[in-house]
């Protein structure tokens, strides 16, 4: 009896679950009894009444069905009042379908079921992106429902070459995923690899994005984000046309994009919504901010503790004045303030919004000002840490921002023990690590490290759209030309 499609067995299996409905339905007067199997709360009630119950009760042709087989055939051949109707013979698939919100009619004698896809559960409507909002551009963002998200992508790319492949992961959660790519542009090896990775995920549940991310990334020890995520369908579509692959996971309101390279994480949708010069300036400022946030605290420690001759005269005098009565070393000041900064951020995130704002004011302004007045820290250090802190939040990708914040600490520590020597050692290790990272066959620092420079046109500076002729060299499989070479008239 086990693992067979049978109402008695299923009823017993879910006997303790009050939300599971398994109830008999008598079809006309033919003594045919089939069983309804559904999850209360996951189905569309109106559609259920209309497409399933009403159909079974008033359709006159059903009276002519003498056997379960005849009844099934009739329903599957157009008798059912619903377009998404299918026969299910596999027990596991049936359980999964019903638990995901479908309705099944169980035919005990046939040991089969007819499944109606009339899912309806509470879901968030499409709203403005919270993290990647733009002034000029689309206001759509992904939601937690996979099918809504794939529909949003499909609306952007109305091509028959867009493939939306369904996958499942999670032994208990059976989380649905969609692998989205454009045939003939995306590399099939990468598609196969991602498919294989997902099929090998041996985990009960995927409650948070990190669970899936950790399986997808190739260099698990690296702190740098190797999977890009976005809330914006337009961003996914543009990456798909570049030859990248998107992974839509049910329950996660953003979409993963693979393979991911560092320059992608520095791009913001705003860059493309503005004039190319404005976009380039914004992009350049972002790269400058990356350098400032990474190196400024370490540079300050090195310059004020070891190589003070590096500073211009007036600056060294100003720093000297500011530090006169402070009892701590520069390294202690900077590291202490960096830690305080992180504590403030964490506290601000955990607290309710209204309290969080008050907390920021109290922590940032009152405590900071008091600490300076009490000569516990010098004003220069406050400026340095504030600049580095704000610079870190300019990164469009929060994962990159977090990585940079941690590396900033390591570099500051190295500068504290070795001055510029330590800082340079840190820089060499960092660059070596970044150069060694590869992501599904592409270099993480691509196109900075590429031999061909034609894809460099969308990195530190955003060139006019007419120059985006080629797809990324090492990402696109074939059909590498993205647009015709537009000539100036």
């Amino acid at each position, binding site marked *: 009896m086990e693992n067979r499609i049978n109402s008695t067995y299923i009823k017993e299996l879910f006997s303790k679950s009050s939300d599971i409905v398994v109830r008999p339905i008598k079809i006309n007067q033919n003594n045919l009894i089939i069983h309804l199997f559904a999850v209360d709360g996951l189905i569309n009630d109106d559609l259920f009444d209309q497409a399933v119950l009403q159909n079974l009760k008033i359709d006159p042709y059903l009276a002519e069905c003498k056997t379960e087989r005849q009844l099934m055939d009739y329903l599957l051949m157009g008798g059912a009042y619903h377009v998404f109707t299918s026969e299910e013979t596999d027990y596991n698939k049936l359980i999964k379908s019903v638990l995901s919100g479908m309705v099944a009619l169980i035919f005990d004698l046939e040991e089969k079921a007819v499944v109606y896809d009339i899912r309806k559960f509470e879901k968030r409507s499409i709203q403005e992106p919270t993290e990647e909002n733009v002034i000029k551009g689309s206001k759509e963002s992904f939601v937690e429902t996979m099918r809504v998200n794939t529909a949003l992508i499909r609306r952007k790319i109305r091509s028959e070459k867009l493939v939306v492949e369904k996958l499942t992961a999670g032994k208990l959660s059976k989380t649905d995923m969609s692998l989205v790519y454009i045939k003939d542009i995306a590399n099939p090896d990468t598609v196969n690899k991602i498919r294989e990775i997902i099929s090998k995920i041996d985990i009960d549940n995927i409650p948070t994005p990190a669970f899936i991310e950790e399986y997808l990334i190739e260099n698990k*020890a690296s702190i740098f984000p190797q999977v890009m995520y976005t809330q914006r369908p337009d961003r996914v579509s543009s990456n798909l046309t570049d030859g990248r692959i998107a992974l839509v996971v049910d329950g996660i309101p953003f979409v993963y994009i693979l393979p991911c390279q560092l320059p992608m994480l520095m791009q913001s949708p705003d860059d493309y919504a503005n004039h190319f010069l404005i976009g380039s300036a914004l992009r350049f400022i972002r790269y400058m901010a990356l350098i400032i946030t990474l190196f400024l605290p370490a540079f300050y420690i090195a*310059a*004020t*503790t*070891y190589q*003070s*001759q590096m*500073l*211009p*005269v*007036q600056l*060294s*005098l*100003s*720093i*000297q*004045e*500011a*530090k*006169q009565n*402070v009892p701590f*070393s*520069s390294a202690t000041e900077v590291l202490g303030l960096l830690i305080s900064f992180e504590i403030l951020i964490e506290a601000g995130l955990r607290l309710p919004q209204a309290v969080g704002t008050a907390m920021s004011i109290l922590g940032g302004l009152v405590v900071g000002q008091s600490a*300076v*007045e009490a000569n516990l820290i010098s*004003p220069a250090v406050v400026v340095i840490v504030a600049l580095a802190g704000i610079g870190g939040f300019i990164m469009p990708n929060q994962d990159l921002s977090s990585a940079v914040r941690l590396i900033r600490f390591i570099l500051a520590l*190295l500068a504290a*023990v*070795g*001055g510029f*020597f*330590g800082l340079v*050692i840190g820089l060499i*290790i960092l660059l070596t690590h970044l150069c060694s990272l590869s992501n599904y066959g592409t270099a993480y620092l691509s196109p900075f490290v590429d031999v061909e420079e034609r894809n460099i046109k969308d990195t530190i500076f955003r060139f006019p759209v007419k120059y985006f002729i080629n797809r990324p060299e090492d990402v696109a499989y074939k059909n590498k030309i993205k647009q015709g070479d537009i000539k100036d008239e």
Partner: protein
Amino acid sequence: MNRVRVLILFIFLCLLTGCSNDMNRKEIDEINFIHVMGIDYMSDEYILTAVYNTGQGADAESTDTGKEEIGQGRGATPFEAFQNLRLKNKKTVSIANTGYFLIGDRAAKKGIDYCIDFLSRDETVKMESLIFVTKGVQAEDFIRESLDNKQVIHEDLEAIEQKQGELVKRNDNTLVNILNELENNMTCVLIPYLISENNSFLLQGYAVFDKTTLVDYLDMDTSSGVNFIKNIIKAFPIYLDNNVGLSITYSKCNLKSACEGKVIKIKIDLDFETAVKEVNTDKNIFTREELNRLTGMQNEYIIEILKKAVNYSVKNKRDILQISRIIQNRHSKNWKEFEEKWNDTLPEIQYYYEVNSKITKSFILSN
């Protein structure tokens, strides 16, 4: 494998912490940065007078950079005097941020090479720091007088540097430049000299060094002539006797040389442009004839200035115009003949002048 890497990194970091003592770890507030250093020679010993900020007296809200103090070190050599200065000071002293070195009159006469040798061997010194000579006085007296007059000496010297920048295209009195100049024995090293007047410093002209010792001070016009010939003039005022003032906005000087037998001929080819800055006459000067006349006058004015520099060189047998370098580079075969008796050759050089100019702007809208 990863554990081994982490372990190696950890050991490396631990080892690095031990380096901090050997890497001159010193908090910035534990250092006295010398902004200005005076180098003097008196009674067979060198005296270094260092001006630095103590930081005391500056509060968080003021933009004041604190109180200037003087430290002094004495020794048989400048380096010994510097060590003496270090020993006497409460904090570590550093010349890493010293922007100006003032060489006293006597120290300059003793020899500039003695004064700056120890600087050139310090790895922290700024090679673009400027060197000045204090005319007729000790650098120490110069510094003390300015402090007594409540002057902020490094700010006044900064102002001098800015003024220099407005008049000439480059400062040739940087430490690195003077070290280079000293390597050439044939030419005279020229270092600007300062005088103190009415609570401020004035830059008047060049101190002339024969090989390494101070021998003379050039007046302002002769120094300007040198600047013209060195092609470093950026702006220069011209005062004509009919109450017309002009300012040079562009100048280019080219020295053309020829060796004819034992005769060296140098043609000073100067092109410059001026703008009218002042017209205190009722006469309309903006006519073609009048402008031509003014052009001629300004040419003569500049030729006179050029001649002063040339005459000084000829009369005193000092190569302040760096002619030897031109002959060395352009006429290397002939140079061997002149090399040994170069100073005697200097008066024999024949100079020719070709000065062309034009008045380009009046800055009067109606004209």
